[in-house]
């Protein structure tokens, strides 16, 4: 409950934040919404000597549309994503996903960049980021680089973000005509995290699937694309959903905890994948 002592730095630009990161190296941590870092510090599981607060870097909190892409700053809170008129119009699935995160207090403080960079295996955003084929912008003293969602989540709490880098922006293609998406989660009754969460984004050509993207969180150590489900649906009609969804947990070492066994989680992944795909199709047709 009481963190070890640390030095607090409040910066007003990404450049200053990066400079402090390179100055203090492993000793420094970025503080955004604090919803992952502060609990760990309170338990003294994390004891950074320097905390670099980027809360005042206001341009990182912006949500904008540019050239058919939706650009969300890493500091945008879940609440601002949930209520953004741009997101609601162009990426309704992402607004719905944000609305299902934690509770109102968490959504008011927690940030999209913080959530993605922390990569909690039961966080909601990673499933949506994968299904929407998001692109993360990572900044370091040498410049910027972009990483696709599919290459971003590496392992439990591990992402492509390198030491000294900051996740500054997440970019999404707006959903086009004939495309619909749905995020469904089985909410952990205590934590509110996704016991299993499934994001399905489908594009139909006529009555058949043109493109299917399924991101699943909560099932294993990291969020993943359910490629076997996607492949099983390629070019098929929606009556293929049930059979395809049965592959949702294939090849995943499913997590067991006191709330849900791996076996149950795998079943939830199959059921929610089927339901998410069915609802996504219904949305396109509606």
């Amino acid at each position, binding site marked *: 409950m*009481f963190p070890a002592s640390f030095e607090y730095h409040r910066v007003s630009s990404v450049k200053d934040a990066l400079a402090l990161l390179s100055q203090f190296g492993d000793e420094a941590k970025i503080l955004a919404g604090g919803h992952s870092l502060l609990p760990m510090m309170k338990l003294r599981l994390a004891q950074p000597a320097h905390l670099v607060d980027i809360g005042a870097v206001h341009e990182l909190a912006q949500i904008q549309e540019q050239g058919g892409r939706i650009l969300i700053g890493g500091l945008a809170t879940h609440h601002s994503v949930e209520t953004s008129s741009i997101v609601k119009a162009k990426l309704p699935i992402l607004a719905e996903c944000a609305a299902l995160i934690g509770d109102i207090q968490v959504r008011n403080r927690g940030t999209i960049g913080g959530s993605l960079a922390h990569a909690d295996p039961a966080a909601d955003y990673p499933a949506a980021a994968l299904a929407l084929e998001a692109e993360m912008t990572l900044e370091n003293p040498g410049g910027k680089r972009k990483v696709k969602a599919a290459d971003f989540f590496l392992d439990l709490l591990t992402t492509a973000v390198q030491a000294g880098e900051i996740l500054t922006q997440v970019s999404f293609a707006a959903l086009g005509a004939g495309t619909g998406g749905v995020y469904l989660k089985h909410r952990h009754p205590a*934590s509110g995290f996704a016991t299993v969460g499934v994001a399905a984004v489908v594009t139909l050509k006529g009555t058949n699937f043109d493109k299917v993207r399924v991101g699943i969180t909560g099932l294993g150590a990291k969020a993943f694309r359910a490629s076997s489900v996607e492949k099983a649906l390629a070019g098929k009609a929606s009556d293929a959903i049930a059979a395809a969804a049965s592959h949702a947990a294939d090849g995943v070492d499913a997590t067991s905890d006191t709330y849900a066994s791996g076996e149950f989680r795998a079943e939830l992944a199959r059921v929610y994948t089927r339901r998410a795909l069915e609802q996504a199709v219904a949305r396109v047709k509606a």
Partner: protein
Amino acid sequence: MAVVPKFVGERIKRREDPRLITGTGQYVDDVRLPGMLTALVLRSPYAHAKINSIKLDAAQKVPGVVAVLCGDDLKDKVGSVPCVAPAEHVPYHPVLAQGKVRFVGEGVAVAVASDAYIAQDALDQIEVDYDPLEAVTDPEQALEAGAPILHDEFKTNSVTLASVPNPAVDEAMNKADKVIRFRIHNQRLAPVPMEPRGVVARWEPGYKQLTIWSSTQIPHLMRSQVADMLKLGENKIHVIAPEVGGGFGAKLNVYAEEALISHLAITLKRPVKWIERRRENLSGTTHGRDQIVYLEIAANKDGEVLALKGRFICDMGAYLQLLTPAIPGFSGLMMTGCYKIPALAFDQQMVFTNKMATDAYRGAGRPEAAFIAERTMEAVASEFNLDPADVRRKNFIAKASFPAPTAGGLVYDSGDYELTLNKALDQIDYNKTRAEQAAAAKEGRYIGIGIASYVEICGIGPSALLPPKLKGGGWESCTVRIEPDGKVTVLTGVSPHGQGQETTFAQIVADELGIDIDDVTVVHGDTALVPYGIGTFGSRGTTVGGPALMMSVGKLQAKMKRIASTMMEVPPEQLEFRNRTIAMASDASKSIALQTVIEAAYGYKTVIEGVEPGLDATSFYEPSACTFPFGTHVAVVEVDSQTGQVKFLRYVAVDDCGKVISPLLVEGQIQGGIAQGIAQALYEEVKYDEGGQLLSATLMDYAVPKANMLPHYELLSTVTPSPVNSLGVKGVGEAGTIGATPCAYNAVLDALKRLGIRDLDMPLKPETIWRAIRDAKKA
């Protein structure tokens, strides 16, 4: 001046709320004193271990640290944490472990520093050398030969065995059409008050006076016990229970920290604060329930239940807290519920395990009893293919039978059980809902209707029911003081912490004296102000505290009538209190202003024979009997057979708590109670692994329900006044919890009935339900 309205029975908003909502109430953590230090407790990471050594010196050297102590430093200085309930084996319970730890979260050392951060730095420097021992967390295994023994001196993990035999039960078992047997586990729960515990202690050396601020339900009883532990006179200890952010029974206790922090304040001669952290609250504040019962039901084909027999195994945890072994008794005595079941026998084996102690938690023994009774009704209905509502009707104690003696040896004061059942079924439209259930089943859907009729015991009660070692009976105290300016101060011995007696008692006083509610202030929770009182628990605040208030108000009314009588030259029996006057009942125009009488009492310019000056009355009310609130809850749920998730479609509660003084507050109590009752059925579970590690030590793991996990409540009531007290009230603090658990449980099991599923363990988690459905479909 406007006519003063009546307040009793009106929907008055809680007068406590504005200060709580605006953050201007004072909780223990809001107490800030000059020179105050902060204490943190180092807690055992092991469920069972020998302590070889504790090295404190590095911690003591941390700058800003004032003291670091362990259990051995406190031997002979602070007495054992008390258990007042009778038991065969009551272990010594040190405020910090000595030689051995027996559960995860047991206090091992304490650091006192200028702030909590430094105190935590100090805890990090303490080195404890443990020898881990085998732990036992399953109470049935704890009784087996060769199980690890918690307290070597007893050579057994048995705390005590209580038996209530009855040969008539065996006769009934022999002649019944069927004996139904199954096992029930009322799982272990954590009370989780929103405000954890906390203690501030201040010692004033010149006065040799100790002040303790504690988040407690029982300031006076706690003072008596802490005086014992510290060997101080009770007149040297001033206990203040400021705002208390929920207790649910968990603060009906005396904890190690209350004595430990006091001892530190005395020895360091500086105020010391300790505020419990949530992890400590979940591991080191008493838990509730954790009772296993092997139940036998003797029943006939027509649904008549002839006898109940229960063999209980009750998990006490590692030590006995204030009332730990007394709680299960209620489960045995009340397990016949609302029913005229003629024969009852039970025995209760209380067991030590390497877990936190259990004790009172909202309902304290009665939720377990109601669960047994209502599972009994469902089991009989299933066995003989009868409608569960009909089985209840068949067995109800009839309205004409009250006061009704029960097989458990109690006497229920008043009731009309069938009325609440009928009202609840009408509200839900039972026959139509059953038809909808059948139609949904044809579509492959699983809808269930759950019924629970409950009765519980409140207003405890006659002092003979309370343990002799408690140093206080079942009575309650109240002082009412009319101040010279006409404002009224009520000083009550109950210690409300959410129940709202600042509102309820003000309503009563305002009506009795014909004054405005804003002229009444209710004071509680301060042993220097309030006469010795017993406190708030067991839904007794208004049921026992209310009549004490009425007695004192009555004394003042009589006195003021005598004064008015002299001034008006009218016999006192012809006078009544009305609209800020004392007036002739037969002629309202003949009246005298209340304020004139009050001034006469204080000014005392005219001496009235036998009337003392002042307007101050203190009373102690000893109840003649307990009260028995009751009701029926009905829920309709739909189970998602693919994910095991339960969705509420309806929730109807018909509760009867006797006369209602404050309808809004009664509804609030029922709503919160239902939430906690549903939580037991569906969500909550304190879980230890076999090695005694606590797996539910944070609110990320322990599933206290949020609003979106609960149904919309349709609340109805009936009113059957209690003949036991002058207010006709019965108590309502626990009713919702007691009705809701079996109601929600029965609804889910009813949904699964066509699959042959009859028995699942609580909480009914999605995985539990999903597995049961899968296995039933395989079979």
